[in-house]
């Protein structure tokens, strides 16, 4: 029995709003993907025909490929560093008996909430005026670490938090030194979370724009390159690049999701009589 006579109407209008929202969010992306296959030299409606020409052009564009290369270099280094730093920080946060655990946790994760412009400007001033560094991919990496480390900390710390303490006790009980317990028991069990942190760092770094814009030197990353290009008019080539990026990003995020699901299953309470997979 419906709670209210208007229940049906309310439900329908909610669905409508929800649908509109989805269209609003994804329609531009859809167009970008479609335009990347469009024959016309200026992307727009109507679609004139299907071609892979722009993908070919993308592969022949030296400057663009260099930007892609820069992005990949930055992303890989950022991901490795962020994972190491973030994992260590997570251990400190969860395991060490620090004085103000909540304040420390907030301090570690605040950069996620701070506007990118703020981080970008302050980093620029810091590098240029305080440290007297010249801007390069190095400064970009440093900038990206500011926003990726907190994510790794969050993900790994939450796994560590739910880690069954008895497993470590059992390891110690069976003769494992604290170091061996970490290596043989804790790390393998939180590895999926660490992997998820690494993958998320990659995606964050690849499409980070604001901070990069402030910290980048003469070598552009892909987003900054696209931005400078777009100012002179969008070519379908850019659509092709963006589409490739989209696929890669979604793929990486998908992997991260799988990894986190696995982490949850491994470290969660052991289910009795869980069926063999």
């Amino acid at each position, binding site marked *: 029995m419906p709670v209210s006579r208007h229940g049906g109407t309310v439900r329908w209008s909610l669905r409508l709003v929800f649908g509109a929202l989805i269209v609003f969010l994804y329609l531009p992306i859809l167009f970008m993907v479609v335009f990347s296959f469009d024959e016309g030299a200026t992307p727009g409606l109507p679609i004139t025909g299907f071609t892979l020409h722009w993908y070919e052009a993308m592969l022949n564009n030296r400057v663009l490929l260099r930007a892609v290369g820069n992005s990949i270099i930055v992303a890989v280094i950022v991901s490795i560093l962020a994972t190491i730093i973030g994992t260590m920080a997570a251990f400190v946060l969860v395991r060490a008996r620090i004085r103000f655990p909540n304040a420390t946790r907030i301090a570690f994760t605040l950069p996620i909430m701070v506007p990118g412009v703020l981080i970008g400007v302050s980093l620029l001033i810091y590098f240029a005026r305080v440290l007297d560094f010249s801007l390069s991919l190095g400064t970009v990496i440093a900038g990206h670490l500011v926003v990726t480390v907190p994510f790794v900390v969050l993900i790994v710390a939450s796994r560590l938090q739910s880690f069954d303490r*008895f*497993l470590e*006790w*059992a390891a110690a009980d069976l003769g494992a030194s604290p170091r*061996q317990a970490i290596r043989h028991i804790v790390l393998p069990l939180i590895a999926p979370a660490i992997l998820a942190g690494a993958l998320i760092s990659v995606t964050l770094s690849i499409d980070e724009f604001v901070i990069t814009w402030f910290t980048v030197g003469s070598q552009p990353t892909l987003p900054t390159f696209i931005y400078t290009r777009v100012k002179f008019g969008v070519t379908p080539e850019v659509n092709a690049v963006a589409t490739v990026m989209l696929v890669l990003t979604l793929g990486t995020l998908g992997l991260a999701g799988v990894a986190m699901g696995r982490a949850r299953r491994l470290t969660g309470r*052991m*289910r009795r*009589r869980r069926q063999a997979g």
Partner: protein
Amino acid sequence: MTGAGTAPAIELINVTKRYGEAVALDRVSLQIESGEFFCLLGPSGCGKTTTLNLIGGFIPLTSGELRIEGQRVNDLPPHQRDVNTVFQNYALFPHMSVADNVAFGLRMESLPDDEIGRRVGEYLELVGLSEYRDRYPGQLSGGQAQRVALARALAKRPTVLLLDEPLGALDLKLRKQMQVELARIHRQVGTTFVFVTHDQEEALSMATRIAVMAGGHVRQIGTPREIYLGPVDRFVADFIGESNFLDGRVASNGQGPAFQLSNGTVVPIPTEPDGTQNGRVALMIRPESVGVGRGAPGGMTPNVVIDGRATNVAFMGNHTRITVQTDAGILVALRFHGESDEQAVEEEMLDQEVHVWWDPRESTVVTADDLRGSEEELRGGPEG
């Protein structure tokens, strides 16, 4: 004291453990001899797990001394202690197969591979899980997981095996089965077992000795028989099995030690209570020692007989439970079926005048008030 052959396997000397302000163990002393099946028994929160964790080395002592085989080990980390633990939740490593779980401790000792392989086989066989060696913990039943945990701990061949309510998660039938299994394994390997439980029946049936704990103290240590038949106080008597308590005071009838019940009757008791039973006392008689009938008791034993009225008769399967109101207090008697005594059909006793009797040798005087006040602690709520 340090000779390895003579020192107790485990010795606690005045051990205190505080968590902040809260005292979990208060000056506990006990000795566990090598080869024993020693039970720590007590209600929830009395400090059993704390005691085990102290012995295992997972938490530090606040004060006192802990010795394993005569060696002071207060500051020895757990991985260097020759004791192993079966945790209440088993704590199997979920990312390792059953065989790898059992092998883990042996690998930490850097034993040669063939020795590890041999021992894993041996101990999985001991617990009857040879076919399960390649399964993962997530694919085991509770009873199987429990046995893997046991094999994993035993494979290290420790001096002492600690078990924290290992059967707590199992259903009644499996539990009984595992009790028998554990007793067999204990006999077979000969290791000292320290077993935590809050199930008195489990403790009575398996232990060589029991320490009854309450509120962070050890109340009594003794064999199951000693504790069941001669509890030191009302708490222990009540916790181990069911008991009748009759209020009164120690008196003398001129012929030997005696006890005056609250209705004035003076009844003989087996021994003069020692000085420790000052304060309020009660006479304790186990229900199975209480006879009941409409006629006088048969036999020649110098029974104590008092009169009362049967207020409840409950058929319990293999026995009947009869509650009798007397002017000295309420007594519960058990009549086991199939005994030759054909005196009366129990059901006919309901609401009738009956006699109850017991052999004075089977009664004990216990302190009724709790001097250390832990009965309140145990009840613990505002209702106490």
